[in-house]
């Protein structure tokens, strides 16, 4: 009962801030609304008892990726360019196709029900200890390859963004 109210509150807040992200004129407002969306999604992770994912989500998305976006907007001074809108009919078509995608997805998912459903607050698979065991026993190779991926991304980003030396 209480869970349902929290879910509705977080969902409405998430969808509201996602729509406001699309409707704001300045990019800095879009970044801030997206940060609010990420916090509501972290709330959803906590509702699912996915504690590790909730904390990692806040650290990675709200703490690193959004900070990157904010730095880019502020350092490149991208905020004073208020976008000139696309033609009205293109916007209508885009909203229509997005709406049709939503209708298709809702039509698919309406009659779906899980056969066996566990309560994640009883099975506790979202805890750091249990996830850590699975991560380091079964998925050790992707874990190590992720570090190589990060090294590649760092080298690439530095190489791309540095100024040409004459």
């Amino acid at each position: 009962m209480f869970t349902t109210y929290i879910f509705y509150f977080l969902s409405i807040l998430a969808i509201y801030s996602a729509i406001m992200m699309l409707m704001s004129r300045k990019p800095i407002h879009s970044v801030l609304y997206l940060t609010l969306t990420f916090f509501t999604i972290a709330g959803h992770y906590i509702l699912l008892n996915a504690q590790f994912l909730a904390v990692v989500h806040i650290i990675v998305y709200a703490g690193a990726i959004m900070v990157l976006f904010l730095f880019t907007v502020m350092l490149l001074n991208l905020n004073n360019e208020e976008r000139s809108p696309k033609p009205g009919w293109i916007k209508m078509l885009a909203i229509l196709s997005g709406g049709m995608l939503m209708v298709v997805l809702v039509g698919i998912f309406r009659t779906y029900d899980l056969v066996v459903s566990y309560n994640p607050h009883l099975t506790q698979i979202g805890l750091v200890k249990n996830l850590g065991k699975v991560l380091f026993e079964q998925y050790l190779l992707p874990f190590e390859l992720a570090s190589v991926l990060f090294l590649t991304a760092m080298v690439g980003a530095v190489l791309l963004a540095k100024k040409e030396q004459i």
Partner: protein
Amino acid sequence: MQNIVQNIQTLPISYYLFFCSGLFCIGVIGVLIKRNALVILMSIELMINSINLLLAAFSAYSNDPAGQIFVFFIMVVAAAEVAIGLAIIVVIFRSTNSLDIDVLNKLKW
């Protein structure tokens, strides 16, 4: 405290299905509507996040930790992709002084 935690009921999975579909479609609309390359990148991040939440929900309800591990790796890839994407946007802005995709639609500037 443990009693409170264990008494939290689970919602039917369809709640999460509809909510994540809605967020995904808002992301799709964002990619199609916006002209600023930065906001398009943010809409793609919104789509990735909706999928993350759905994967975590299914993993929690099916008692399979592989879903949440997969979400962890998706976050890894998304972080790397945002870093590279923003570096590309910085380079584009530095050389052409515009981030409008209707202006930047030529392959060679």
